[in-house]
């Protein structure tokens, strides 16, 4: 099993704690007093109908969205909503958290190699040679070393998403957020991405994954959180919930997803 995480310092993954988080867009309450804990090294799958607030919750963890109330803690960094967040603590938080988006968001004007190396140079202060070497090592591990000199536009969606994962991992995050990482991909391509994520989970990375991939949620995640209308309606062991959901709303959602 090739390991995505090898160096000792990278094994320091961190837990994520969300406490009494609320967020409104205008008058629309999208997150209503959410609290959840993700243990260091564990994988939490976040599922629920669209509009349930799962993506917004994820984006609040690294403050792409500013929550109105509540706190987010990653490792030893805590951000309290409503207080003025200094650029420094914002950076401290984001440095610990990697994020992968539905639409990959690679930088199209940079080669694959530069996409992965540039943030390391800027954020970790690595030399260009060091950053590119690390980038090549990681690209190799996801089978994309031969794409290093290409631009992302020349890569398939599945390849782009794997590159995006590598770009985030290159910064040694202590937790990773995935926002529907396979929703923009054909199912057979999504498999490549899920394989990388599975490997990452096995290597002990803390992960929060917003997904519609029920098999992944059941097989890979340690904890399942079901959201609807901005609230957590049910959470617990993924297999247990999928086999026998307690909430009617969960039951409806699961049967709708599984019938597709």
């Amino acid at each position: 099993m090739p390991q995505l995480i090898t160096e000792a310092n990278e094994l320091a993954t961190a837990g994520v704690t969300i406490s009494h988080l609320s967020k409104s867009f205008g008058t629309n309450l999208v997150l209503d007093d959410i609290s959840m804990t993700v243990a260091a090294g564990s994988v939490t799958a976040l599922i629920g109908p669209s509009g349930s607030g799962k993506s917004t919750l994820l984006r609040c963890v690294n403050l792409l969205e500013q929550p109105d109330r509540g706190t987010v803690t990653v490792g030893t960094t805590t951000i309290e909503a409503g207080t003025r967040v200094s650029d420094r603590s914002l950076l401290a938080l984001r440095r610990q958290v990697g994020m992968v988006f539905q639409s990959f968001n690679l930088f199209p004007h940079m080669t694959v190699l530069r996409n992965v190396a540039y943030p390391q140079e800027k954020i970790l202060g690595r030399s260009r040679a060091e950053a590119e070497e690390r980038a090549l090592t990681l690209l190799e591990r996801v089978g994309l070393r031969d794409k290093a000199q290409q631009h992302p536009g020349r890569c398939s969606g599945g390849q782009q998403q794997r590159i995006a994962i590598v770009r985030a991992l290159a910064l040694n995050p202590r937790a990773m957020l995935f926002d529907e990482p396979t929703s923009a991909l054909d199912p057979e391509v999504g498999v490549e991405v899920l394989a990388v994520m599975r490997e990452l989970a096995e290597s002990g990375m803390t992960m929060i994954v917003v997904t519609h991939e029920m098999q992944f949620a059941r097989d890979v995640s340690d904890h399942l959180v079901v959201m609807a209308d901005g609230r957590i309606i049910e959470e617990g062991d993924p297999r247990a919930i999928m086999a026998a959901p307690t909430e009617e709303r969960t039951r409806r959602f699961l049967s709708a997803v599984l019938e597709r």
Partner: protein
Amino acid sequence: MEAVVAVLLGLPMTLLVAAAAFAIGLVSGIPLLLGLRSRHRAVRVIVRFVIDLIRAVPPIVWLFVLFFGVSFGALRFNALAAAIIGLGVISAAYLAEIYRGGFATLPAGQTEAARALGLGRRSTFVRVLAPQAVRTALPSIATFLLALVKDSSIASTIGVTDMVFAANTFVRQNPMTAGLTPFFVAAAVYVVISIPLAIVARRLDARLRRSA
């Protein structure tokens, strides 16, 4: 033949005015763009007003104001300076808008990805957004330059000795023989300059569409 030579003598001035104004515009457009994208609402409102004001007044009026209006002692502009500064300021306003358009087409995901990676505002702007925005804006910038080369001819109205001024002068000095020939010559030279520029602009545009 005499007419051709006379008009061509104005060509360097035409190119100088256009090139200098374009250079001023390319550079000064950047602070205006930053103003339009400022975090502070007051800055955005002021810069927006300045840009709209510059664009609202006809270029020829700007040149007249600068040339005849600004004259406190040493600060009196000569015709060339007035033309270059006037057209430069106007170019800055238009190019700021073109730059802004380039940024506006970028997907929000680019900024989000940069922020999520932990890149600061400056790096995000300079290394992630600007290269993409410039590439998107290039065809419009080339098209703007094309218009500027021709519009620089209004500098002749304040006495800059460009091609149109040269054509005018030639007609005035040879009222019986010149006819419209000098103007046709000037027109031909503008065409010769413009067509390659137009081709470049179209190529850039086509390349952009392919790579997008």
